[in-house]
């Protein structure tokens, strides 16, 4: 019945036997088998620079007792290799024994189709698409000096075998279309980057010549930045646009609400459940169940069905995001946030689609209320120090606000804030909630996983802007 072991030297019966025999004396654990095919085609400097196809197959065998995790992974799928792994796990946990928790929720959740996005579009038509994107972007203006376009598609099939022979599986498609444009005018160079994607076939994202909109957007950002002036430095009011700027939410509070940091009491939020951590009207969820979104999963990488987890409700901290290990140690249930980059990586609590729900204000009202501040529309990346709560993110499109009006574009500034206090500084929550276009990858402890974010426009009372203009 299992398909990933089909062509290997390891039979499902043998695998079952080794798994059960290894895990019976442990609290938890599983054998995770993964077969991933991925394809990346890059057009750069007017040429198809690379076409890479990767086929990765391997297993990760995990045994957990108490708060100790033993993990062993390999690309050699054989009885001998799995037995070696088993011996390795046993020797790590030799002094501990536990009671296997076989309980795991069942689901028929189908948030995306079982498709292979690599095969459903021919190589010829992918190359043609990249060439069209290149030509179209360059035709927009003679100031366009460099274009990089890429197509990424992946099909990740996973199987989880738990002690007792329970088998769980998920087939996860993922695509991403990226565009980067460099514009040069009057000796200045600026870039604009845009992308779209999710868990459907390329063609779903390419309907109505949508690829042109991707090019238009990348060009618009680059062209805006070419006119930009130095960013101011210091504390000021910030209006955030809807959608992708929600990486602020992801960095400022998302990571701090992951179960592991709170179980270990190293997060600035660990003793704040039930307390007010954000302004009234602020509700933040982490939702793994939105159809076809980049951060959605039918089951997480431990086999738990994903769910819509309320993290902050009307300003009050309600829940952390949990995997099985941290949930057990904190006497609660997994929220289906147990994720890993691949079979080579251990499971950790990770975000899925992290979203601030909409409010009642308009973006216009927010801008009108600001005497001096900035209006940040798009961001590159962000980072957070969980323990001190300090987070940063880098503007890729931002404008000054003077006397209630949007003014000139400003150069890429870094915004820095304090997670636990910044959400209390939210003055207005917009009525224009939007999800990001499907391009986010979150990094934690060296592991990258696809995620989504979303938010309405926000007015934040006070953030530090890192510019060069005093």
């Amino acid at each position, binding site marked *: 019945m299992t398909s990933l072991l089909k062509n290997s030297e390891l039979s499902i019966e043998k695998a079952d036997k080794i798994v059960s025999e290894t895990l019976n004396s442990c609290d938890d654990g599983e054998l995770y088998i993964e077969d991933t095919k991925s394809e990346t085609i890059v057009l750069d400097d007017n040429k198809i620079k690379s076409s890479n196809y990767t086929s990765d197959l391997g297993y990760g065998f995990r045994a957990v007792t108490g708060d100790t995790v033993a993990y062993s992974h390999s690309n050699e799928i054989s009885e001998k290799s799995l037995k070696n792994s088993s011996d390795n796990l046993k020797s790590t946990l030799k002094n501990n024994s536990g009671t296997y928790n076989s309980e795991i929720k069942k689901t028929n959740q189908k948030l995306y189709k079982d498709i292979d996005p690599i095969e459903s579009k021919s190589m010829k038509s992918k190359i043609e698409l990249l060439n069209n994107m290149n030509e179209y972007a360059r035709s927009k203006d003679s100031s366009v000096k460099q274009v990089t376009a890429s197509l990424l598609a992946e099909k990740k099939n996973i199987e989880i075998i738990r002690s007792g022979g329970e088998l769980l599986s998920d087939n996860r498609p993922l695509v991403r279309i990226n565009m980067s444009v460099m514009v040069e005018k009057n000796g200045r160079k600026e870039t604009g980057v845009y992308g779209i994607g999710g868990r459907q076939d390329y063609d779903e994202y390419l309907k109505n010549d949508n690829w042109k909109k991707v090019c238009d957007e990348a060009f618009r950002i680059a062209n805006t930045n070419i006119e930009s002036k130095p960013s101011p430095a210091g504390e000021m009011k910030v209006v955030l646009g809807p959608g992708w700027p929600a990486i602020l939410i992801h960095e400022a509070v998302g990571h701090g609400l992951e179960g592991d940091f709170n179980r270990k009491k190293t997060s600035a939020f660990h003793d704040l459940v039930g307390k007010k951590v954000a302004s009234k009207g602020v509700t933040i969820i982490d939702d793994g169940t939105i159809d076809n979104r980049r951060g959605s999963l039918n089951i997480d990488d431990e086999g738990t069905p994903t769910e819509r987890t309320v993290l902050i409700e009307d300003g009050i901290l309600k829940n952390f995001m949990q995997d099985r290990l941290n949930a057990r140690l904190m006497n609660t249930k997994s929220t289906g946030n147990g994720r890993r980059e691949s079979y080579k990586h251990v499971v950790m609590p990770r975000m899925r689609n992290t979203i601030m729900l909409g409010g009642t204000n308009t973006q216009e009202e927010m801008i009108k209320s600001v005497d001096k501040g900035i209006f940040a529309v798009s961001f590159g990346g962000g980072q957070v120090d969980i323990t001190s709560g300090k987070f940063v993110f880098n503007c890729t499109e931002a404008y000054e606000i003077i006397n209630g009006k949007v003014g000139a574009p400003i150069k890429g500034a*870094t915004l820095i804030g304090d997670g636990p206090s910044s959400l209390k500084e939210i003055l207005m929550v917009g009525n224009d909630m939007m999800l990001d276009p499907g391009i986010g990858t979150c990094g934690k402890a060296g592991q990258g996983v696809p995620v989504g974010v979303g938010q309405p426009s926000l007015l934040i009372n006070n953030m530090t802007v890192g510019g060069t203009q005093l």
Partner: protein
Amino acid sequence: MIKDQDYLKKIADICLSKSKKLGSTDASILVQSSVSENINVRNKKLDGSERSENLGVVLTTYLGKKKSSIASSNLKESNLNELVDRCIETMKITPEDEYNSLPDKDLHFSGLKDLDLYDETHLSNEDKINYVKEAEDEAFSNNKIVNTNGSGFGENKSNFLLANSNGFADGYKTSQFTAYCEVVSKSNGSMERDYEYTSKRFYNDILKPKDLGSIAADHAVKKLNPKKIKSEKISLIFDKRISKNFLSIFASAISSSAIAKGTTFLKDKLNQKVFNTELNINDRGDIKKANGSRYFDSEGIGIINLDLIKNGILQDYLIDTYNGKKINRKSNGRASGTTNLYFENGSKTFNELIKSEKKLLYIKETIGHGTNIINGDYSVGASGIMIENGEFSYPVSEITIAGNLNNIFQNITLADDLEFNYSTNSPTMHVEGMIVGGK
């Protein structure tokens, strides 16, 4: 166990001969095998152990000027055959690129392999756990250390073979021993984390566990109860663990790929003054036992030493075969980037540097990705310690530092305290007049 050269060679031969049979005119292949064992300890108790065995192959085939690549971790012959088929099919329909080719045969590495890059020492998990416990014990002997984020020890051994259809076939084993300790300090409602990290090819060269623990504790305690300062123009001192980042930025700005595309602020700066005239930057691949040392790059081209900056003047780029052709230069063996990249020592001592101005901000950590290689704009979040009259006075956090790299590079003064702890190394650095964003 990591696989030996004979095993790697067998896999390479299967793929190369199959590619040739299916009509490719050229091909190159990398076959890798590695085993790593890591343990993590938290609060002096085993948190986790991890053993990884990795195998991998990357094949690139050429048909004249057409090219395609595949990679796989599944080295079964039937799977390899399928993938080579796929690679060839894709290659045939990929457009030609006049710059595609295997590297110049004359530049292939040949010579002695005497750099000592492999230490066969194997530590049992018990030994690794003991090392880390000793580090944490030492950290906890500081009474402001209340928690740990985890500390760990990793041992990695790998072997690889690189081969191409021009007759190159070579590879070698390397090892890496890594330990880190990350602790949490607490005092008067303030909670901070910091770490120390050591990574060397030889076990005997890594930090002693007590030093690892005490340095980590010291870093974390010194960050407690920080203040936010007013926005101002101020000179900065960059701690060695941050100053080396400017070298990494410099390296990406002189990569032949960025130069060829014009996507770097250092385009057209060859033979021009990029840094102040006292500065020299070298990239040497032949330092014995060093983390960045290698015999040849990912194309098989032998490593030569490069004086990238001499008396402040840019002397060379980092060049691979493909991008080299675009800019009419031969590869200098940098297809896998820099080797051991470093600033030569400056003439001032650390103490002279921190006493050089009445008020200086000492930067110990930066966060965020605010470097724009295309135009040189730099803006990151930071924390550190204020220096007043040559004395460290109070910690500072939640600030940003910003400037343009063209100016930053010209305003660097270095101390004389270079150490080879990583593959990229810098002495302590003074940068005049940067903009701090604060209150």
